[in-house]
């Protein structure tokens, strides 16, 4: 059974989408470790190491995700999680910015996928299924 760590990063209280997502991922057959709202980056890593997780799902809604998520991949690497699948999703930046630019910014930070505002859980579940399948085939992740 694949293990996923979920949580809302930084000083962000928006728990609703993250909770619904976590419930749905559990229903979809994953073991989900839920860290809840206002979770420092370090706690994600710690939980992932402890549970030997396959992916970390970072939620950020409140706009300061761009500040909170910097260096997240480096923290993972430091902790020996070089290849862990990293997703981020929500309202990642302050204001209504063109999604393609925002996505690029977060992929450059080392996330494998970034989900735009309002992403539905069905889409996330499909991503996970395809990415884990791709990994079986030795790829980093499936095509977009």
């Amino acid at each position, binding site marked *: 059974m694949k293990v996923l760590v979920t949580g*809302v990063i*930084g*000083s*962000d*209280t928006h*728990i*609703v989408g993250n*909770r*619904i997502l976590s*419930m749905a991922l559990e229903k979809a057959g994953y073991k989900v470790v839920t860290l*809840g*709202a*206002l*979770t*420092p980056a370090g706690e994600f890593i710690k939980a992932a190491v402890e549970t030997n997780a396959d992916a970390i799902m970072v939620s950020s809604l*409140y*706009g*300061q995700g*761009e*500040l909170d998520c910097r260096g997240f991949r480096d923290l993972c690497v430091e902790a020996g999680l070089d290849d862990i699948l990293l997703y981020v999703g929500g*309202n990642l*930046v*302050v*204001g*209504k*910015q063109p999604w393609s630019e925002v996505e690029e910014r977060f992929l450059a930070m080392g996330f494998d996928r970034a989900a735009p*505002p*309002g992403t*539905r859980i069905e889409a996330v579940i499909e991503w996970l299924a395809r990415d884990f399948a791709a990994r079986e085939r030795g790829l980093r992740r499936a095509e977009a």
Partner: protein
Amino acid sequence: MNAPSLPDATRLPLSEARIADDVFRGMRQDNLARWPSGADVDFDEAVDLHKRLPLHKQLGWVMRKAVAERRCLTQPRGGFGTFEMQRALMVALDNEGLADIVPTTTDSYTRNEQWQLAQKGLEESETVGRSMLNGYPMVNYGVARARELIEAIDKPAIMLTGTTMPRLTSEIAFAGGYSGYLGSGIAYTTSYIKELSIEDGIRNYQYLDRLAAMYHEHGVELHRRQPGFLTGTNIPPSIAIITCVLDCLLAAAQGVKNYGVEMGETLHMVQDAAAVAACGELCQEYLAKKGHHGVFTPVTLLHWMSAWPQDEAQAAALISYGGTLAAISGAASVTTKSTHEAFGIPTPQANAEGLRMTRMAIYLARHIRLDGLAEFKREKELIGREVRAIIDRVLEMGDGDVAVGTVRAFEAGVLDIPWSPNRHCRSRVLPARDFDGYLRVLDPGLMPFPRDAMAIHEEALRKRAEREKVPFGPDLAVNSVYEISEPLGKLLPDQWE
């Protein structure tokens, strides 16, 4: 992260009682020493400043005037990471948005008293020229800058700080000339933080309420306000109002006299109208019961507080309807959103447009009242029964002390909040929208709602489950979270079956 505010040296047992003057003096001293800008707070000078403000820039006066003239005022949210951006925003909201009340929203680091992080965010925002923070770092910019903001506008200003730790932010804001402050111990602690205990949240707001009352005692009537919208996610009116009443009683005990109460719109016209009427009356009923006299409690509605549609046309309708609902329900003010809501913090222009849409909607519906409808009466009576059942239980559990009763009630699940991030709140209560569009309680958790009231909720929700062929259960609640954000083609298909 998430550091609870420093425990006061003088920590007394929790109670609703007014903080003694000497104790409060010590608390203030400690508090103001926590960040350099605290040193600039001079209470007497601040009192003078407020007294020199024209009446129309004092929110206490303005809220009373709105109620007296049956006006529904408009107020947006708004905060950017640098002083220049913040000033430009406030001027735009005043002039282009015709906002009756101009806000300053703080950023989320400031909300959590992470002023170091806020400082970094502020500096980076100044460097890159776009806001990296989701609000204005009030504490970092300090008193003098706050005064410049107040000078830049011709309206009263309110602080929107969505925090459980308002002690330093409020000192600076009041000293800067802000005459309104939104926030309360119960509402924000259950909705905006994970670790802080309900007790600590209440204590932090007792400080703020005492501070506001102290201004009052010196002849300055500030406007305090309670965010009964909570987590903004399908909160049924009775749950909102329970927190309005309890937070209001806590504030009144500290001596606050001008205390607004807020609720998110349910989007059901009758339910919103009934909720506004019930909320005002229930606050007054319990104030009288507890012997607090002369507390003014205007009611504010907020535009839809849960997930928004991405289509700007749909969002525009939601904004306009938000104005319609506020006007018809007789709310004293309405807090607005913009067509950018689903995406991110709006530009000043989009924000101003949201204000104008709302204002026009208010103008159009200003004559309509629904008090004569049977559904209105039924709903208002239902809300009253639910609120009384729970508040009476809370007071009982606290042996008459609201603060103690509240903490015990949250422990026992007698008080509960839907979709709460807080570990000290069970968040077992689960709301959903019923077939007729009312927000109902799907699962009361351990909240002791009257049995017959719950029967009404259940029947209405079963009807929805049946008609929509979904199981009666938590899916109803989850669907209700998404509902209003769905694309139109799903909400009201343009195909016939």
